[in-house]
């Protein structure tokens, strides 16, 4: 069996941090995604332009560059803004916050496209019927639109989630103790880089495999009652 020379627990800790990071970023990404998708469909020109600018810019820049920009740039920005509001001490940006906000910000743009497609896939008549029953905009959204768009959103959402999980490996570069960094530390100490990075790769494979199983289950659940051709 694999001998991790006592570094097993620290890799496990890193794995837990990776999972936390994935879930926290996912929450931000979904929130930004749904807002951006609604802005794109709102018919208001300024909102539409802002949303389009956001999704276009994000898709043109590599994740790593954005992450370094937010991590290093955010540090400078906060310490310039701090004195203006009367806070004199040096502020350190928490790498976890930088990582989560960057990944959430990036995948918000991808989620927006998925959600926009899913919203458009719900027939207009459904929404009109809701309004003609006297439902408010929010009621139509939560009772009619949301339950029906989930089915159309799941495949795209699943892809985004799988890419998001793999992107979290980048946080090791800005010094967050995720499993890649824990493996790097262990590899440095034991001179067994192949062993430790392979363990991390297998962990990622396990995470993606579990995700795929859950996504398939969700897909079947929300496709209930739909006849496939």
């Amino acid at each position: 069996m694999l001998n991790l020379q006592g570094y097993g627990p620290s890799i496990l800790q890193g794995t837990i941090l990776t999972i936390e990071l994935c879930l926290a970023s996912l929450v931000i990404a979904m929130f930004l995604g749904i807002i951006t998708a609604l802005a794109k469909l709102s018919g208001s020109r300024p909102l539409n332009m802002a949303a389009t600018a956001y999704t276009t810019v994000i898709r043109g820049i590599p994740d790593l560059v954005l992450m370094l920009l937010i991590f290093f740039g955010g540090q400078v920005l906060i310490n310039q803004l701090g004195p203006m509001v009367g806070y004199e001490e040096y502020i350190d940006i928490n790498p976890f916050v930088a990582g989560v906000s960057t990944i959430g910000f990036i995948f918000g743009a991808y989620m927006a496209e998925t959600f926009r497609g899913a919203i458009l896939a719900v027939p207009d008549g459904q929404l009109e019927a809701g309004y003609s029953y006297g439902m408010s905009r929010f009621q139509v959204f939560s009772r009619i639109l949301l339950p029906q768009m989930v089915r159309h959103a799941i495949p795209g959402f699943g892809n985004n989630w799988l890419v998001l999980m793999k992107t979290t490996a980048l946080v090791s570069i800005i010094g967050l103790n995720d499993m890649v960094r824990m493996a790097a530390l262990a590899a440095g100490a034991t001179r067994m880089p192949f062993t430790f990075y392979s363990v991390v790769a297998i962990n990622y494979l396990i995470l993606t495999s579990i995700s795929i199983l859950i996504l398939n289950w969700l897909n079947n659940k929300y496709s209930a009652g739909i006849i496939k051709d």
Partner: protein
Amino acid sequence: MDFSIIFGNLDIYFEGLKNTLILVSISLVIGLIFAVPLAVLRTSKNLAVSGPIQAYVYCFRGTPLLVQMFIIYYGMGQFEPIKASFLWFFFKEAYFCALFAFTLNTCAYTIEIIRGAIENTPHGEVEAAKAAGMSNFLRFRRIILPSAFRRALPTYSNEIIFMLHGSSLASVITIIDITGAARIVNSRYYSPYEAFLTAAVFYMAITFIIIWLIKKLEIRWFAHLRRE
């Protein structure tokens, strides 16, 4: 914003641009060359043929590119036989390791894209080719692959852009690509905005040029579907 930092260091960025373009184009070309035959074999009903390819694709699509690159760049040094052989001449070079990792990665994704396109070939076309007495090889060459390439183009253009963005990871193992140039400038002047925003502009420019070129190619390839 201090523009003198940007203009004073443009030569580093252009050096980085050159490395990024070399890494991305070589890995995409080699990846595609291997992906086409492997995708055809992947559709085989014989599990001994399609199984190993499926396993390769699954492993490379299920793990981060960064980890793959680390396994190749740092991991190979763990084995004395590799260090003693001529292979070490390649694996000790960061440039080769990045290229190797990128190629294996893009090849796996491309196999999956082409496989999807092959499996979506209309059944009638395949039957017609069989009825005309075409051999297996001829059928792939004349009927299945040409239409599969057309169907794969929009997805493959995404893969090209993912590879461009993924290539920024090369900067982590000491290669001076565009991101590497930005990291040098940032550490030299401690000016993250100037350094990374310039890199972002470079990447965006390349991304838009690629999208524009693909649009042109789509117009050519889909000319027969255009309405007058």
